[in-house]
């Protein structure tokens, strides 16, 4: 048994505090998730990882009720503004009911467990939970 953890994507950081990061273009400041060959905005090729605030505001959402096989439904897919950077993520710790969700809602980063593999390593996902 080990308590090793691995983030679901490389822009989620678990230590010391859970944080998301974006790659920021050194030339123009455009921000991206995932490896880039060059900046889509200014074509520069140098990037620096930048931490994002963990608090955000829901810009839009949908409640996905019908999905391809293997995807657990319902889930609330959202786009959240975290300090001026739009981040995709599920809303968690809230009922998948339009009466419980609204655009403009304040949320914060929350971790989720995706299960443990054969080696005992836990994959850690993230979502956004309402700020009470």
């Amino acid at each position, binding site marked *: 048994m080990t308590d090793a953890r691995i983030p679901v*994507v490389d822009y989620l950081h678990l230590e010391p505090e859970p944080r998301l990061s974006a790659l920021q273009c050194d030339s123009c400041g*455009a921000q991206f998730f995932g490896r880039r060959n060059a900046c889509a905005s200014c074509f520069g090729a140098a990037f620096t990882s930048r931490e994002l605030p963990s608090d955000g505001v829901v810009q839009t*959402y*949908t*409640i996905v009720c019908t999905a391809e096989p293997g*995807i657990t439904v319902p889930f609330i*897919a959202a786009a959240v503004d975290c300090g001026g950077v739009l981040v995709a993520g599920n809303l968690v710790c809230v009922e998948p009911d339009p009466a419980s969700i609204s655009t403009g809602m304040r949320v914060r980063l929350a971790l989720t467990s995706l299960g443990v*593999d054969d080696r005992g*390593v836990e*994959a850690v996902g993230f979502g956004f939970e309402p700020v009470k």
Partner: protein
Amino acid sequence: MSVDSDAVYVLGIAMTRFGKHPDLDTIDLAAEAISSALGDAAASMRDIGVMAAGNLMGGSVAFGQEIQKHVGQTGIPVYNVANACATGATALRTVIMALKAGEADMGLAVGVEKLAGAGLLVNPAAVADATSWTPSGRLGGVTDVEGLIGTTRNMPGVFAQIGMEYGNRYGGTSFELFARISEKNHAHSTLNPLSAYQKRFTVEEIMNDVMIAYPNTRPMCSANCDGAAAAVIVSGRKLKSLSASQQRRAVKISASVLTTDPWEAGCQVLPNINTLTRNAARQAYEQAGIGPQDLDLVELHDCFATAELVHYDNLMLCEEGGAVDFFNSGATWRDGVTPVNVSGGLESKGHPVAATGIANVWEVCHHLRGEAGERQIDGARVGLAHVIGLGSACGVHILEKVAA
């Protein structure tokens, strides 16, 4: 209006009935549309100098050539094109570019899809189910993140977010508002004998149907179906040498535009289908020398009810931020100031993906020629056809009546 040598024209255009065609394969459907379009043009494959073909889901790597083997092999170049839901418009635009470049004086564009009963369409998933979590790919993901980090593959969900984002910016949207947009398009299709669905639904029926991705219920999603559409395009120079009846029925392509997303913050997180549509519309109005107020009808890409709303704004049919009021005024019903999707749109007429960008041009031409029967928009002289392929590609064509 006389024939302009430097312009290009639709000489013949046709679509098959959209719906279920269990006994016809993609080549049958494409051949039927081509044969009807050639008949409509009073032309033959011998007249065609260039061809572009689209079939997104069929898996062929040389579909245009496969069609040629069943409609006529004359040795002309074929461009097999793919551009998501803008594939048909891309085929059309490819032919138009070849004619404008002077490489041919008559060309054929065709799009076909067989999707009846396909259910929810998704892009292929990454292979998952490893026995140990191992980061891979550009996100360093340890598993397929669809459904874990929002959605990129669930089209009803992606377009739901796009409609809800409009509501967040400007206000006034609701589940019921989006359902009423769907009500309009289903009501329109009752007059279209080629539509996959020709059934009117009440708002209550639409809202109480199966929820796919809130706020899009099943009748608010584009209808998967089989269908094909084809167009014969001719240069003005060539058209001048054709018969009076061919000239009379020809429809001028006053604008043909294809755009992609310019980079904007957030556009790789939530697809921005607004800016590229607005850019395409602006270029199209400039090319055609007309404004949105001049349009007698619009066929726009209502792949979901939530998408139709934002395109009222993107195509500048209303003031910026005014799409909700514009719809609520009744403007986009067939008796309104700017009828939108009088064919029934993708939600009701259907969306055989690669055929859509030619079929909506057919709908506009049908009205401009005064041949739309019961659903004719009286006195229609100018119309616009719009498609979006997520990724994204936006095609806009403006069509104008030639004959007085």
